[in-house]
């Protein structure tokens, strides 16, 4: 077989080597020879060097190498059988250049603004003369992660340095470089260069720090917002459980902060009697006190009288108020209130109980003498109160009725001149709150006070019904035109006042006496010395000195409510017990200056 020239290569375009492949030699020793012709000349040359390049090769050194010359090469195999010629091949050194691999491939990990990158640098194969420009090489490199199969190739052109970005921290990379003349064959890949990229947390860390700071700020702001709105949030998320409400229980009492009110509020849980049936019970027990409208005396309910917790046994059967309660006056107050209520009912009081009370008031017949305890108080005549009551029985009262009933006792809060009333806690049933209410309500519109008045009456009424009512409650209900007639002063220093009812005059033997004159003395209050303060009759007594205030005079007529009346101020106090003072009985007046021995009619 003939040999075959396999390839010829020149590494730097200055020398070249040809290899041939020997054919089947049949086992016989064969010699090979290479002959060549240069550039169409006739001279045959033989290979100068068979050994440098290895077996079956021919090495052409610099002297024998001519570039841009066509070599016609033939390999001859010779053995015992004969010789065999290979096919001639044309070789031009300029086109068979295959350089060696690039040398000194170095890879460094460098940092660009916190991000790492690989910088690969190499050198041209030492034999290739690039410096003179004889050969121009272009380079190519490839990179891959350790453990992967795919290479990432990069074309580097004629430069001897290359940057690889977007590498992963903490991993190992493999780098290889090869080169090629602008027209020639690629060299072999250089030996692998390993590079380990250290862990780069710089950039990532800063990012994490930024993220954490931002999130912490957000968290703080959110917490602050939640804290600020915690109250509303609580309401939103955990709606307050509606607490038990007592019907007719006014929370305002607690807010006002007056202990007496609170106590009274607490004490009468059942208070507003919502059924008229209760009233019937009360009916029996109350005295009817008729107070004429004309005489609108402002009866100040003494606290003592009104709040007296003493239970008075009232004999409701008798026309006379046999209730010897020292809180007669307060009872009167209560009745007065009731009367008011009764009268007010027509005006549309919404509370049914009022009716009952009215009846009760009517039934109230007797009044007790004001007790000395009441001395400090002035007794106000209710009628004035009553008369004006209906006006004030407005719807707002409805809401408060129960509350006021429970907490307000003898009313006349508004009637009291400011500061005149003193609060005295007489007992558990003492409804301090009345006065306090009075005072507190003074600046309030009149209506409020009137409401209170009414409430008082109501309270009083119901109270008596329960028989727990202090004498206070057992006040005879007063009609608007009811008058209280001082009957006598009993031994107990109680002024027995008889309600004079025009209609019921028959009941009282002394009724006609009472009705004689227009002028009636109104019980203003009880002086400190157990004096019953009476106010002389209105009309004729305008200028009377007994009339302390002209204002108060005018107060009689309904407008007495006006509140800041000082009805009683300068009333003369009449000592009740035992003193006998001249009383003008002619006109039916009871001179306040005189003691009451009571005009006994």
């Amino acid at each position, binding site marked *: 077989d003939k040999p075959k020239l396999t390839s010829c290569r020149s590494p730097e375009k200055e020398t070249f080597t040809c290899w041939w492949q020997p054919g089947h030699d049949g086992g016989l020793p064969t010699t090979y020879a290479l002959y060549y012709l240069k550039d169409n000349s006739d001279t045959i040359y033989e290979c100068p060097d068979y050994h440098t390049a290895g077996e079956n090769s021919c090495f052409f050194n610099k002297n024998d190498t001519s*570039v*841009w010359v066509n070599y016609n090469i033939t390999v001859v195999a010779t053995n015992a059988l004969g010789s065999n010629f290979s096919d001639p091949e*044309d070789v031009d050194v300029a086109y068979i250049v295959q350089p060696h691999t690039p040398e000194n491939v170095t890879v460094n990990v460098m940092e660009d603004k916190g991000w790492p990158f690989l910088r690969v640098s190499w050198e041209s194969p030492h034999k290739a003369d690039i410096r003179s420009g004889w050969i121009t090489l272009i380079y190519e490199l490839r990179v891959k992660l350790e453990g992967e199969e795919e290479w990432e190739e990069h074309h580097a052109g004629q430069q001897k340095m290359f940057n690889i970005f977007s590498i992963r921290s903490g991993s190992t990379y493999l780098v290889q470089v090869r080169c090629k003349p602008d027209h020639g064959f690629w060299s072999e890949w250089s030996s692998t260069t390993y590079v380990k990229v250290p862990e780069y947390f710089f950039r990532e860390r800063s990012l994490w720090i930024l993220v954490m700071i931002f999130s912490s700020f957000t968290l703080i702001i959110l917490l602050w917002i939640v804290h600020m709105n915690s109250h509303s949030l609580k309401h939103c998320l955990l709606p307050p459980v509606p607490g038990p409400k007592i019907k007719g229980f006014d929370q305002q009492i607690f807010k006002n902060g007056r202990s007496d009110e609170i106590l009274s509020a607490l004490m009468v849980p059942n208070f507003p009697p919502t059924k008229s049936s209760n009233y019937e019970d009360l009916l029996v027990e109350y005295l009817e006190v008729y107070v004429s409208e004309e005489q609108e005396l402002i009866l100040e309910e003494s606290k003592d009288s009104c709040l007296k917790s003493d239970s008075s046994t009232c004999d409701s059967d008798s026309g006379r108020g046999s209730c010897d309660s020292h809180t007669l006056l307060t009872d009167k107050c209560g009745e007065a209130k009731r009367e008011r209520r009764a009268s007010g009912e027509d005006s549309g009081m919404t509370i049914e109980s009022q009716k009952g009370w009215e009846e009760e008031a009517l039934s109230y017949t007797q009044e007790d003498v004001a007790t000395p305890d009441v001395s400090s108080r002035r007794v106000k005549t209710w009628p004035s109160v009553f008369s004006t009551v209906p006006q004030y029985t407005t719807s707002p009262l409805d809401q408060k009725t129960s509350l006021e009933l429970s907490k307000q006792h003898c009313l006349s809060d508004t009637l009291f001149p400011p500061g005149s009333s003193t609060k005295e806690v007489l007992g558990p049933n003492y409804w301090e709150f009345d006065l306090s209410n009075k005072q507190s309500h003074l600046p309030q519109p009149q209506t409020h006070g009137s409401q209170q008045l009414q409430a008082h009456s109501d309270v009083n009424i119901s109270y008596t019904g329960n028989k727990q009512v202090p004498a206070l409650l057992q006040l005879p209900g007063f009609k608007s035109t009811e008058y209280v007639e001082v009957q006598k002063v009993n031994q107990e220093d109680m002024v027995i006042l008889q309600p004079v009812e025009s209609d019921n005059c028959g009941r009282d033997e002394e009724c006609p006496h009472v009705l004689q004159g227009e002028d009636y003395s109104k019980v203003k209050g009880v002086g400190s010395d157990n004096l019953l303060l009476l106010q002389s009759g209105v009309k004729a007594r305008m200028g009377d000195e007994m009339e302390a205030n002209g204002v108060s005079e005018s107060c009689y007529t309904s407008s007495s409510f006006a509140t800041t009346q000082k009805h009683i101020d300068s009333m003369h106090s009449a000592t009740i017990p035992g003193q006998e003072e001249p009383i003008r009985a002619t006109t039916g007046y009871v001179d306040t200056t005189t003691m009451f021995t009571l005009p006994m009619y």
Partner: protein
Amino acid sequence: MRKMQKVKSPFIAWFAVIALMYLKYSVMADAAPICSYGQATCHVPSLADLFDRVIQQSSRMHGISTDLHSEFDHYLPSKNFIGKQRCHTYAILTPDDKEKAQRLGREQLTEVILRLLMAWGDPLSQLHWSMSQDQNQDFNQYRSNKALEISDIVRELKDGVIKVAERMKRLGLNGNFVSYISPENVDPFSAISFYKRGELNSVDHQDLLYCFRRDSHKVKTYLRILKCSTFPTLDC
């Protein structure tokens, strides 16, 4: 109508004036040469730039010649040129060794380059013409285009090398350079008659391209040597 024309004519005149002004300014903008190095005088590229341009062109020339030659290699076996010269430029003595080339010196090297380039001007146009005449239209169209392109490049390259040589001479690098080439090799007919008298066939094309490919490679190499000897920069 006449009135309209009368009215129009001044407008047209103004329009023409404006258009000319615009064109002038635009052309002025385009006329300014682009200087990649940001030099003050952009009109005159530096010698290094000239060299780069020339080398680029020679590289491109060689690439096309290689492509064209490779196409022929597939179809036709090469002739056996034993006993005679294959290429018409055999008379031009060219260094076939690196040392020889370096020993030549700049001026002679430049001269060799120019000789080669000038020798191939006409044959390439002949080649192009011959290729376009071939019957196999599809196959030859691509080749004839390439041949045309090559002939253009050779012409430009020649001019560029002349400029480089003149610049070098001005700079004192090319003292003895003679831009005038003796006319002995400039015979248009003799050049192509070397390959064949009369019309060239495809076989002749192959020979011609073979020779041209070699000579283009020579030019490219010589130019690089010239550049690297003049400007020993990083590229060398």
